[in-house]
């Protein structure tokens, strides 16, 4: 069932509020991992393989070990004494071959950048000097540089005991796809290629490991989105009890999924610390980040869509190829799997046959990046529906609208895995198209075209699966972890509030939105609320981490639940103090009063005093002292938010360059806690997507070498490349989430790639160009334009 939001009286929730984090962060008073120095700390560096595939025949570290200032040099053989293989928590494909690797290679390297040895030294300079003194002999093995090579019948194999390079394969059927395609009036299909990139946070990854063998404890500072997961995985790899490990997370300079994953560096730092009996800081530098942080997006989707002549979609089928690396990363083939599960998007498609093939190559391990497969799902359904509209001669807007589930059809099972909770898709589409008209884009396009300019308007409709997810469902589909979130909320003896959460704040404003929810939930001023995150010893356990658009939906729901119960207790104590019935009381601005008689009131400070210090005569006999509630929230379903994005572009037909002129998005993520921050999330995500759509690419050569290992060649979009943004919200609350929130952290990244293609196609509609490759660089687009022009001439 889909309902519309009932207006609720809230003081903070739903209102734009500057981030409470801002004064500290914007004045340079944040504490990031590199700002932390612990006593006796030394620094590490990792020697990374310069070749993509080779057997290591000799490593000689003696010269490095002799360099003054060097404390220890370790190789893979030293590491395996204390560490098992790197963990893979997602095993989504039944019978999948899971290729695991140790944090440092032991005998074979399978990607450029794989760790081979590591140094701990007095500082990073000396550590890097020492790396140059390590001698390694590599016996080259044939390189599988890309997907097509990996799939070739005579391909060299990454793993000798495998029959081929395929880690696993599975198909999701629904209905009868073959029959649907046989009876279809129109079939459109294409091969879509999204090249590799990564969730580039401006702060690189880093950690400080302090393995105190005398205390038997591993104390780690780690720039991570998932401190509880990291603690569990450290315990698993190092065979340590979880209670002997503490993970603390300082301020994060961005995470974008990349910092969800668990990296070899954490283990290497721990082993170096154990070896040197000193804390070891190990920071990833920008150059190595291109080979040592999770590679993402790298996939090919060969898909086709079947329709009736009236525009009804009757079938979707195809194969998605995940370009995995030389070993599986933390999330295995999770994101490619999600790209398949979500590839029907917002459309009702009764017959589906969706295949995933996970393929190993000599590239760095595949991992998490904001959007987690869904940007490519979006490319599949949004590109195909536009190709279909073209072929049918129908409006691309109308074709989308007629294939949406109606609000009454929710909860709607999409066919492969996800059940969408609620939605008013057609309303959202109309919101976007009317905004396009209001902004005069159609006029700009017409006038531009009359002046000889190639102006295009792109549209994209996206769905975003958030609130990952019901724990048992996640376990069932192959996650060796859970999906609940736990929150602890406490009012202290002075009536002030502390919320402890296992979520990570990486710049998205979690502390602000949590403070808004807690302040409203308890009826206290937002200034009275402190949010604490980032310490496994004091903060609660979160089942997954900050990812999967979970922070507002699950952590937020837990705050709503916990603060509701705590508020009841506050009112019961207030009733004792005011000699009133709790049902007659309300709490507002930190004062408990009898409804309609504001002069009879007590403050939260009075309540706190009664619950912690002066219990006698103040705390009801039936109440336990202290004011604290814990809520563990495990959702009954995920949430599905959605939106319609429109983009105005200009294409230079002579150079292939694309300029982004303007962008708007109509969006529905249920109840919005903070519109200012919501818009920031949407804009940031879209900017990243435009990076993937036009700029960012790991370019590899035939030897598996990466040719884009600096910001000179890996092109993040900058402010001058990004258009203005305009956001329009509608609110359809998630019926199963207390508070009604749905995820929105990944919306922009999901929506923003395909819409670039849609806009380019529209700008070149007279030529019939169809963009299927990302990023669409100027040379690639010029090639498409010329091919279309010469096809037009011959036709």
């Amino acid at each position: 069932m889909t309902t519309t939001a009932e207006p609720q009286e809230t003081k903070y929730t739903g209102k734009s509020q500057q981030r409470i984090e801002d004064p500290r962060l914007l004045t340079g008073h944040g504490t990031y991992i590199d700002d932390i120095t612990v006593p006796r700390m030394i620094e590490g560096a990792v020697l990374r393989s310069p070749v993509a595939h080779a057997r290591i025949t000799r490593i000689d570290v003696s010269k490095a070990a002799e360099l003054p200032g060097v404390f220890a040099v370790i190789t893979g053989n030293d590491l395996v004494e204390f560490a098992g293989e790197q963990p893979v928590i997602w095993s989504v494909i039944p019978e999948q071959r899971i290729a695991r690797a140790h944090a440092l290679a032991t005998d074979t390297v399978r990607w450029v950048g794989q760790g081979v040895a590591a140094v701990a030294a007095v500082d990073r300079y000396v550590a890097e000097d020492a790396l140059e003194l390590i001698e390694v002999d590599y016996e080259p093995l044939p390189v599988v540089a890309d997907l097509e090579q990996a799939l070739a019948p005579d391909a060299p194999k990454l793993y000798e005991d495998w029959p081929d390079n395929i880690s696993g394969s599975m198909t999701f059927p629904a209905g009868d796809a073959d029959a649907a395609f046989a009876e279809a009036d129109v079939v459109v299909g294409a091969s879509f290629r999204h090249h590799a990139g990564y969730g580039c946070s401006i702060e690189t990854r880093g950690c400080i490991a302090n393995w105190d063998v005398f205390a038997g404890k591993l104390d780690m500072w780690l720039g991570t989105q998932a401190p509880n997961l990291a603690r569990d995985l450290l315990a698993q790899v190092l065979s340590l009890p979880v209670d002997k490990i503490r993970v603390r997370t300082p301020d994060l300079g961005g995470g974008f999924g990349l910092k969800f994953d668990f990296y070899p560096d954490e283990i290497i730092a721990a082993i170096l610390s154990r070896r040197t009996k000193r804390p070891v800081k190990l920071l990833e530098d920008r150059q190595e980040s291109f080979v040592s942080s999770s590679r993402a997006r790298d996939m090919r989707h060969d898909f086709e869509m079947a329709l009736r002549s009236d525009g009804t979609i009757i079938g979707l089928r195809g194969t998605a190829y995940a370009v995995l690396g030389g070993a599986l990363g933390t999330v295995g083939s999770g994101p490619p799997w999600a790209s398949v599960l979500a590839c029907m998007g917002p459309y009702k498609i009764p017959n589906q046959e969706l295949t995933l093939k996970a393929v190993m190559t000599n590239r760095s391990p595949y991992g998490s990046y904001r959007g987690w497969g869904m940007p490519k799902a979006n490319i599949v359904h949004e590109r195909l529906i536009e190709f279909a509209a073209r072929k049918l001669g129908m409006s691309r807007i109308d074709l989308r609208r007629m294939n949406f589930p109606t609000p009454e059809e929710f909860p709607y099972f999409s066919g492969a895995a996800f059940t969408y909770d609620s939605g008013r898709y057609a309303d959202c589409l109309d919101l976007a198209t009317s905004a396009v008209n209001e902004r005069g884009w159609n006029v700009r396009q017409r006038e531009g075209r009359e002046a000889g300019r190639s102006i295009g308007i792109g549209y994209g409709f996206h769905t975003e699966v958030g609130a990952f997810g019901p724990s048992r469902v996640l376990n069932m589909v192959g996650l060796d972890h859970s999906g609940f979130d736990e929150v602890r909320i406490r009012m202290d003896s002075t009536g002030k509030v502390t919320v402890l959460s296992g979520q990570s704040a990486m710049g998205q404003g979690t502390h602000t939105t949590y403070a808004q929810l807690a302040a409203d939930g308890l009826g206290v001023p937002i200034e009275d609320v402190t949010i604490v995150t980032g310490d496994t010893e004091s903060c609660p356990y979160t089942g997954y981490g900050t990812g999967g658009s979970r922070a507002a939906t699950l952590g937020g729901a837990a705050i709503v639940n916990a603060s509701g119960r705590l508020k009841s207790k506050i009112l019961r104590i207030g009733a004792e103090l005011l000699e009133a019935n709790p049902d007659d009381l309300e709490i507002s601005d930190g004062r408990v009063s009898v409804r309609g008689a504001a002069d009879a009131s007590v403050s939260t400070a009075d309540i706190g005093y009664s619950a912690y210090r002066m219990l006698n005569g103040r705390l009801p006999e039936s109440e336990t002292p202290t004011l604290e509630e814990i809520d563990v929230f495990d959702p009954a379903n995920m949430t599905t938010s959605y939106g319609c994005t429109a983009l105005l572009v200009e294409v230079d037909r002579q150079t292939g360059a694309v300029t982004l002129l303007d962008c708007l998005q109509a969006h529905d993520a249920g109840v919005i806690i903070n519109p200012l921050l919501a818009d920031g999330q949407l804009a940031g995500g879209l900017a990243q997507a435009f990076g993937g759509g036009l700029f960012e690419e790991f370019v590899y050569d035939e030897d598996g070498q990466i040719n884009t290992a600096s910001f000179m060649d890996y092109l993040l979009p900058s402010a001058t490349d990004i258009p203005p943004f305009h956001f329009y919200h509608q609110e359809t609350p998630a019926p199963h989430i207390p508070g009604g929130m749905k995820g929105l952290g990944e919306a922009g990244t999901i929506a923003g790639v395909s819409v670039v293609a849609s806009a380019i196609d529209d700008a070149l509609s007279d030529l019939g160009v169809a963009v299927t490759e990302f990023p669409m660089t100027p040379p690639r687009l010029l090639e498409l334009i010329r091919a279309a022009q010469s096809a037009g001439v011959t036709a």
Partner: protein
Amino acid sequence: MKPPPFEYRSAHDSTETVELLTEYGDDAKILAGGQSLVPLMNFRMARPSVLIDINQTQDMTGIREDDGHLVIGAMARQRVLERDPTAGVAVPLLPAALAHTGHTTNRNRGTFGGSLAHADPAAELPALLVAMGGELTVKGPSGTRIVPAEDFFLAPLTTTLAYNEILVSARLPRLPSGTGTAVEELARRHGDFAIVSVMAAVHLDSNGRADLVRLAAGGVDSTPIRLHEAESVLSGGTLDETSIDAAATAAADASHPVDDVHGTASYRRDMVRVLVARAIRSAIANR
């Protein structure tokens, strides 16, 4: 991304710089603005054992006019040059080209001479010097010599500077009033090194015939190139679409680009054709 160990020396003037260069030989590198050298050292691609810092020198600064020429000290910061009114009037190409050189923060620190001596074939200032037929003043142990811009650049990151010579200044001829200029640059993002850049200056006589044409391109050969053939096509004639197309084709034929991650050689050559035509048209329009 930390440099290997190096020795640091600070020079007081150009003479001491030359002495230090002579003393340390090929192991020494000059540190001016550091916008290219420092990243290269952090990548350990440049490994000088001695760094000679010339930021304390005073005798290589200044921007002045001299006998129909603009003389620019090697240590003039790019941002100062970009905003210098004398320079902007004498050589309007300068501010237009510098707007493409990195970002403001780079130009605050980066120097005029540093960009020339670094000799990146895709950088704007070398292409501008070549377009304008500028002359570079080079100081060595036995005094100074003058090098025409087209002879200064030899190969990527390589100039005629001997190990113990330093670039102290450059001279650019002042353009006659009424000269139209244009910079056309194709880069993936604003501030990136050019895939192709084209500098153009055009002056027409009273009969509408071109009596001054200057064209150069960056990013399309191992050095920035003066497009002499294209200039010849246009010189002395009226500039119409036919002659502009012919000049653009001549320019494309004269370029010898290579493939890199941002574009193939053939794409770059095609872009020379496109950008040369655009640059000539805008130079005419900008008169």
